Each structure stands twice: as C-alpha cells, then as structure tokens.
C-alpha cells in the first residue's frame, strides 16, 4: 500500500488514475493545479510516487520537478516529441508516459517504481490466506502451503493487479515471460491449482471473455 500524489488538471483523467491505483490498494491524493501542488510538495509530506502532468495551470510540471526532491516522479503528458521526453527524463523524472496511455501500463510503471524503491507490499492477506511476497511463502489459516515457482509468480501477478481482469495472454506474459511458448491453457491449469491450494475459489474470478481477476 503506497501513498501516491496525482497532479493532473484534467478532472476525468485524474479521477481515472485514482480509481485504477486504488484498485491495487494504493492511497491517492488528487491535486488539480500547479500552485496547490507546490504547496503540498513543500509542506514536507512524503509520497512514494508522484504522478505529474506537465501542462498545469499556474505552475507547470517542469517547474514542480524542483520541489519533488528525492521522491520518484512519473511524468504524464500529451507532449510526445522526443525533445519533450528527453527534457522530462533529464529533469530527474523516473519515468515518462504520454497520453493517451493504457491504465495497465500506468499501474505497471508505478509498481516498477515501488519495486525499485522497495516500497512495494511485502505481505498480502486475503481471507484466511496470507502471502509473504518477500519470503515467497504462503499460509492458509496458519498452515504453510507448498507452491511451485510458476504458481507463485502467477499469484504475485494477480495480487499486484488485483481487481483488474487480466487476459490469459497477459498473465502468460507477466508470469512466465515473453519467451515462454506455452499454451494459454497452461494458465487455466495453474489458476485451478491456485484456487484449490489456497482456498481462493470465490476470489479468483473468471471474467467472461476476458480472463481472470483477483477480487478483494
């Protein structure tokens, strides 16, 4: 559970980002203009990730970069020229995303930043099931369960993207890697095993025509 600041003047987009990040359990603070953002940043409040739009009323994103200090910043903008990207990255931002973007990509990038800063969740609890993401161990009602390496990878992907449906292809890609040449049915098999071993039958949902979703 990370603390994230969203600075974006477009209300629908700001809200959208917040909703998506909230799904993964992050706490978000929304700000719509440069001036308020500066006040918030200078108040000494710490954030694990700052999502910053460049074109902001009052003070623009590049200016705000000076106030972000050590906090990791993910720049979000409609400017997609190479010079803008370079300017964004050289200004000290950790990452750069241009509009329009896919929410999955945004959450993936946020997760990556959290992983780098070691701010990602270390344990995760769902019902009677407790998962130690760091130690790679799983307990159901206090009793440790053995999972294969692949099963654990899959479980981790589901946890990191909880409440979001992931297609079989995407799961395969995320848990097995790009170069894995397996059938998507491999995913089905592993999902079935996970459900059974961890008593997550009613948590890992099959979404019609989409794939699977871990719901909390």
């Amino acid at each position, binding site marked *: 559970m990370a603390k994230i600041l969203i600075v974006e003047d*477009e209300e629908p987009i700001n809200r959208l980002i917040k909703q998506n990040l909230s799904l993964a359990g992050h706490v978000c603070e929304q700000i719509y203009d440069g001036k308020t953002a500066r006040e918030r940043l200078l108040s000494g409040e710490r954030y694990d990730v700052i999502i910053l739009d460049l074109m902001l009323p009052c003070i623009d994103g590049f200016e705000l970069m000076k106030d972000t200090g050590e906090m990791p910043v993910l720049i979000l903008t*409609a*400017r997609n020229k190479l010079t803008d990207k370079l300017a964004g990255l050289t200004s000290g931002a950790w990452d750069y995303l241009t509009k329009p973007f*896919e929410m999955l990509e945004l959450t993936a990038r946020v997760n990556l930043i959290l992983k780098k800063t070691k701010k990602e969740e270390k344990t995760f609890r769902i019902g009677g099931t407790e998962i130690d993401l760091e130690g790679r161990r799983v307990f159901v009602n206090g009793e440790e369960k053995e999972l294969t390496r692949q099963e654990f990878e899959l479980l981790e992907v589901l946890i990191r993207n909880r409440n979001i449906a992931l297609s079989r292809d995407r799961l395969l890609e995320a848990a097995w890697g790009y170069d894995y040449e397996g059938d998507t049915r491999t995913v089905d098999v592993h999902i079935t095993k996970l459900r059974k071993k961890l008593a997550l039958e009613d948590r890992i949902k099959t979404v019609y025509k989409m794939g699977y979703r871990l719901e909390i």
Partner: protein
Amino acid sequence: MRIWQKIYIAALVLFLVFMNTGMFLAAGLIFRYNLEREMITAQTECFFVCQNLEHDFTILKQNGRYQEDIIYSVARSYENYYKQSHISVTLTKRTEETETIVKSETKTGGEVIYLTVEKGLSEPFEDYAVSYGKELTELEEIWSMIKRIFAVISLCLSVLLCFVLYAFMKRFFKPLNDLNKGVAALADGDYGYQITCRGRNEIAELSVHINKMAETIQRQMEALKEENEKKQQLMDNMAHELRTPLTSILGYAEYLQFAKTTKEEQHEALSYIMGESRRLAKMGEMMLSMNLYRQEEFFSETVHVKKLTEHVGKLLAQKLEEKKVRLSVRIEAETFWGEEVLLINLFRNLIENAVRASKEGNMVEWTGRQAKEEMIFCVADHGIGIEEEALKHITEPFYRIDKARSRAEGGVGLGLSVASLIVKKHGGTIAFASEKGVGTTVTVTLPQRNFTTS
C-alpha cells in the same frame, strides 16, 4: 582562370609589348640621328678634301706640274693623313656613275657599318672624284650599348611592372573577393554575415545592396520561422486537446472492461466517456467549420436585425435560463450587410462567452448602431472580467482562461478563434476591453462601405 589573373596577364603582355616596341623605336631613332650626323660630317669632310685638292691642283697647274703621277702623290698625302683616323680617302677617275655632287651610302657588312661618300671635283678638274669611306665602329658600339641598356631597362621595368601590377590587381579585386566570400556565406545560409566594402565604387554599392538583401531575407526567414512555430504550437495544442479526451475515453472503457466495478462506477465511467466523446465531436465540428470559413467565398446579403436577434436569442434561451442571466438587445438599425449564418454563429459565441463570465442575475447587453460606413456591435457583460495578459491570447485556438470551468461548461477553446475568423471574413475588426471584476466588452466593427452601392 580568375578574372584578375586574366586582366593581369593581358595588361602585362600589352604593356610589355608597347613598352618594348617604344623603346626599340626610340633606339632606332637615336641610331638614325647619329648616323645622319656622321653622314653630314663625312660630307663636310669630303667637301673639304675636294676643295683642298682643287686648290692644290690649281697651284700645280700654275706651276705647270699638273701631271697624273704628281696629282696622285698629292692625293696620297691626304690619304695618308686620314688613314690615321681610320678614314680612307682616295682619288679616282670619274666614271659615268659618279654623281657630280654627293653620293653617300652606308653598308652594313656583318657587324660593321661602312659609310662612303663620293664627290666629283668641280671644273676644270671634273675628270676626278674623291671617294671618302669611314668605318662607323664608334656608332656600332653606341648602338650595341643602347641595345644593352634598353634590354636591361626593359627587363627591370617588366619585373617591376609584374609586381606593381600584381599588387594593384590584388588591391582592386579585394572588394570583389570580399563580396564573393560574403555571398558564399549567404549561400550557405549565414544571413547575419555583413560584407564590408569601403569606397564608392560599384562593388561597394553592390555589397551594400547585398547586405540589404541578406537583411530582408533574414527578416522574412524569421517571420516564416515564427509563423511556423505558431503553426507548430497550434499543432501541439491540437494534439494535446485531442489526446486528453481520448485518454479519458480509453481509460474509462478499459476500466469498465477490466476492473471490478459497482453500478455507480459504471454509470460514472460511461458519462465521462460520453461527455468526452461529445467534446471531441464538437471540437472536430468547430475545426471543420473554421476550415470552411477560411475557404468558402464570402457571401454578403441583407441581414434583418430582427431575424438575427430572434435566432440568436432562441439558440441561447436555455443557457440564459440556466444561469439566470438576462439578455438585453438594442440595435439601432433594421438591416445591414453581412453573411447571416456566420453572424449568428459570431454573436452566439460572443454572448455565450458573456453568459459564461456572468454571475447569476447579471445582465448581458447586446447593442448595435450604424456609424458612417460601418456597423458597430458591442457585447458587454458585468462578469468576472479578463486579465490584461490573457486578453492578448484570447483569440488563439485552444487558449482558455479558466480551463477547468471551460471544460465543465463544454467549451473546447475555439469559440473566439472562430469569432475572429468570421469578423476577418467580413473585413471588420474585433476588440476586447476588460477589467477584472467589472466586466468585459467586445466590440465588433463590420464595414458596410463596399455594399452600400450594390
């Protein structure tokens, strides 16, 4: 070969030819003059010898010794006397060819010039003649000396000329070289290069003109660049304006598809999608109409004020009611010239903005009056007003003073761009005056001059 080299060589060759010819002729003249003098001397001397001989012969005749052998011995004494000076003087029998008076000729045998003078003696000794001959060794020496001196002078002058001419050429052609360098720099795109040519000659004039040309080019290039940047800015803005709603639409659609959502969330996501789609549609429509306004021919007609105000009023009725703003219309004319469809759009835009700026219960005034050769319209509100800095940018596409509010009310940031385009199409002007917190007045002036006669 470079021009200066050509001129240099041509000048050098011509000068050398003329100089040497001149010197040669001068030498010849000097030689001839000397020769003539020698000739005269020789003739005088010969005449002198003749006279002496005649005198001697007369004495001989008086003494009765006028005999051939004595005559020759007398002559020989002269001969011997002149031998000392390397002159041969001989007494000869007069032949048919011997002229009575003087006959002189020079013979150039090899390197030696030989001068001979023959003179017949006068009566009563006309049977005899004196032949006077002289080798002109001295003249020969002078001649060769003159030749040598002239050759040396010619050579020296030639060498000197080579250098002096070269220096002059370099000097004369330096401006041209500078000019050339400058134009080359210009050709390479260095329009800031200033060619420095002093003086008042043609090249200096040319360089001044070229400098001016470069300045003009630079100015125009800058204007073009500015224009281009403006266009780029517009493109960037447009891209931004397109991407933003697209991001929302895509994002909410994704959210609906992948996330676990409640009914409420679904409704909200859908209304965002619809709202943003509408905005995109409106933006597309407006940009299309802007393009059309730009291309379409202006079609002027009689606009009936009553019809116009009623139409605009109808279009805005709902907005006015929502905001509880009253619209007062006072136009002191019945008809005027313009394109009705465009004018409806124009006033709708302006009044819509005025309403947006107004507070509840405010009044928006739409007035119009006929001036000399134009119609002057004003749309005034008593709303929040616009800051001076923002006034400058107000007609730029996608410029919004308060983005959030504009969006909330469905604006796309093109209204005033369209308005100013319509006014421009009419050949009129649009001006904005505003004071923060007091209100804004937009003045539109439409010329009528061109239409009154038709």
